[in-house]
């Protein structure tokens, strides 16, 4: 992936400008936020830390959601400025397998849109044409940088060095090997509910195993995988009808 977003959580004020601009532009359904702010408070009074994380699709190079999707509705966008993870909503069956597979718990099913999976698209249609993402353009404090991946990695690493110099030992640039989105953080990744670095392949396998109670077993039993997916679908349908009531 040649392009990237560098999100500097040490500059983020958690205002939700990215959330709102994204939702407005994509006209997402009421319950859907393709990107949102999550706040993390750690420690206990009076030694308390507070940070926000811009929570959205990380655009993994090896994407668990893509691997697990039973109908191959999830794909990496091709082309020079491609590489982001997208979903074909015509093909999506709303089974929710991707939700459990995602190491970042990002995908959502949109009850107002036929239960299709909804998530950040890295503004793929803009980025492949050479433009930026809506959230990066919106951020009023410059916490979201969009640009050439290599340049952003250098820039992020320089900032990490500055932060470490200033005594923030845990400052790091997250995602340099795995994801299209880079997060600049100054606490351990776990504090931000982020998978440990280098999660991709192993993480994918682990999550899938977790979600489906033993894949080897599933394979051996035959039909089990189908059953799980089917159950998930029924569950979602139930949820939807109860919301409508």
């Amino acid at each position: 992936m040649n392009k990237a977003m560098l999100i500097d959580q040490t500059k983020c004020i958690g205002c939700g400008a990215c959330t709102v601009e994204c939702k407005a532009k994509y006209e997402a359904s009421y319950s859907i936020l393709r990107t949102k702010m999550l706040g993390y408070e750690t420690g206990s009074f009076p030694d308390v830390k507070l940070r926000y994380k811009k929570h959205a699709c990380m655009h993994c190079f090896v994407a668990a959601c893509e691997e697990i999707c039973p109908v191959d509705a999830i794909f990496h966008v091709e082309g020079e400025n491609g590489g982001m993870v997208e979903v074909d909503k015509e093909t999506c069956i709303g089974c929710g397998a991707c939700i459990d597979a995602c190491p970042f718990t990002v995908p959502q099913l949109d009850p107002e849109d036929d239960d299709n999976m909804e998530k950040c698209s890295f503004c793929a249609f803009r980025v492949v044409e050479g433009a930026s993402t809506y959230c990066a353009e919106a951020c009023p404090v410059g916490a979201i940088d969009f640009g050439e991946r290599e340049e952003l990695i250098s820039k992020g690493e320089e900032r990490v060095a500055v932060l470490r110099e200033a005594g923030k030992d845990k400052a790091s640039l997250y995602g340099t090997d795995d994801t299209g989105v880079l997060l600049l953080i100054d606490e351990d990744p776990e504090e931000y509910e982020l998978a440990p670095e280098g999660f991709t392949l192993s993480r994918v396998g682990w999550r899938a195993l977790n979600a489906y109670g033993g894949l080897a077993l599933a394979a051996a039993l035959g039909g089990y995988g189908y059953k799980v997916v089917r159950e998930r679908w029924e569950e979602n349908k139930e949820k939807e009808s109860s919301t409508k009531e």
Partner: protein
Amino acid sequence: MSKKEEKWKLSRRAFLLASGAAVTAGAASNFLIAGCQPEEVERDPDDPVDEQPEIDKTLVSVEPEITDTKFNFCGICSANCAMIVDIADDKAWRIRGNPDDQVAEGHLCVKGYSALKDLYDPDRLKHPMKRTNPEKGPGVDPEWVKIDWDEAFELAANAYNEAIEEHGPQSLAFISRGHDWMNRLQRAIGTPNHIQHHSTCFTTYTAVWRAAMGTGNRPFMLDVGRAKYILSFGWDQPSKAKNMSAREYVKAVENGAKVVYVDPRLTITGALGGEWIPIKPGTDLAFMLAMIRIIVNEELYDKDYVDNYTSGLEQLAAAVQDYTPEWAAEITEVDADVIERVAREFATTKPALIPNHKRDAGGPNYANSWRVAFCINILNALVGSIDREGGQIIGRTPSMVSFDDAFPPPDYPEMPDARIDGFEKHPIIGPTRRGDFSTITEAILDEEPYPLKAAFIRKHNVLAFPNAPRFVEALQKLDFVAVCDVWPSEMVQMADVVFPEPYYLESSGFGNRVYHAFYPQIALREPVIDPLYDTRGYGGIITGLAQAMGYGEYFEGVSSGELNEQRLEALGTSMEELKQNNGIWSDERPFEGRTEWDTPSNKIELYSTVLEENGYDPLPHWQPKKEMPTDEYPYYMIISRPPMHKMSQTQNNELMMQAYGEENSVMLNSATAADLGVEDGDEVIVESRANQVTLKAKVMEGIRPDTVCIEHGFGHWSRELTIAFNKGANEGDLIPTMPIDEMLAAGDPGAGSQMQDFCVNVYKA
């Protein structure tokens, strides 16, 4: 069969076929959901395996073709960030910050980005209406009937003229922000009663600023971005997403500025900055007095600045000698050595700044807030930060041709002095005629000093008043109320006649950068689309009302178009030039710090002769906040505002409500919650001597155990606000109102509403 079911059936068949192929081929995938062979499947040998539908990898654009671009500036807060609005097929599609505007610098805050949802909100007021149900209040359907503008003006004019004839002009009050047209009608009628929200917002600060600096300019401009030491006593604009404050603050932090955040609650401002000092509510004054003592005694102040541009250092030094760090430590619950360290760091790191904005820090929170504001001025002056880079700046806002110069008025009648809210009794802030939200309620109910019979109200919402339910009772006592608004707010629910206004994106005018002007600049506002509904601008509504009431002569020849032209001409520009220059006119010039002040001594007065002449303490002294925790009300109460919302104006915007999470909550320290047997998400009742509210508890660490916090803007009861209705609760219901005697006894030159100077009890619902 639904579309989803069809898709499911198709997909199921496809992946079963595919899986059959996989098994046949002996490929062992790691992700074998599709790799299983369900028993019930009967494979049709004629079905080719590659029948799995090709997925569509076409990227769908959500962007329409932009057909036009318009200029406007945000009307949500008074920062007025300049906007560029992209139009597609007569519909506003996107709002961007104007890069040529020194306030916006190309970006907007979350509220600005959400504005198109407001513009196209189907709940907006669409035409004039009259009430047919004489009963008024929460839960009552006004039974609106659509009327035309002439009938609306006639109904209002008859009601107002009747009140004036029977009870005198003072029986009519205008509750509205200051506005040239409105102020002219008010003076033509001869009522002294023009009431604005400022006593709940910033008058504590502006009163002492006017006294110590002599400038009428608003003290809202901060050069936070260039500060190297930011000492915030509850200044929290970054976490409230004030566009330029957040941007400049993050810039300062990125550049390594040291930040000390002194507040009973930790917010992102304090968290990004580094050091949080959880001071006891209402005791900032003690911390500041001890700082002044250290800085003066150790001669750490900026000698050049203090010698040349301030007066009264000796009196100041004598006044603060009792305020030792140990004394302050006992009051504030902050260690004495921390206070000493902060004082020394603040005085020796340059540029250093104690920022302040309205209700933050020196705003009307407590009975002693005006003294806090006074100390902020003094401390900033001692370190040489007033009107200097990295400090508090006196905005270079361009002056505009005044309304009266453009359209000289006929003579006005005599106006009685006595106001319904007693605001004329405050010698310094009284002449600004800003009015008082906290005293008006009891004055109307008690009919003291006289009965108020009617009100003309614009936009201010019921929820903005201290003890809102009590203010509703006051409104119920009036014979007639007309309300101008964009939305069917709670105030509109109390109206007899409603005048619908356009949203700001449908109107025109100029913004003169009152919050952030390093150099003179104005931004253009032009309608970005044709008005959606049968609305009229405020000036037009006032003119129509004035004509119907018989005051038409005051508005002969008056037009906003003419006023705009005169203003542009005086600045040496024109509408065409503005449009060519991205909607911005600037007179860029290098920043030069001010060397003279408009006080009696031409200096910043550390010993304020203006306060003294007007009967106030001319020096900073300790005064505790008014109400302390008791057995009945054991907790301090603080009020904040979330980044997504502007007071009570933005809750009907679904973008904001979703981004925020719909309901406000009661923030409690985990230790307090444990004491109360409350868990996160439990419903709790918060009770003050004025009222009570029920909300869910948010259990956290970043707040003092003796303090609870609620965010403002929620608890809408107008059923016509379909998104905001019944979400959360209004913490303003808890704020006690004040009779005028109680207000005067506080001795606050700014007549602040003491919005947090009460204590509460909290218990599980």
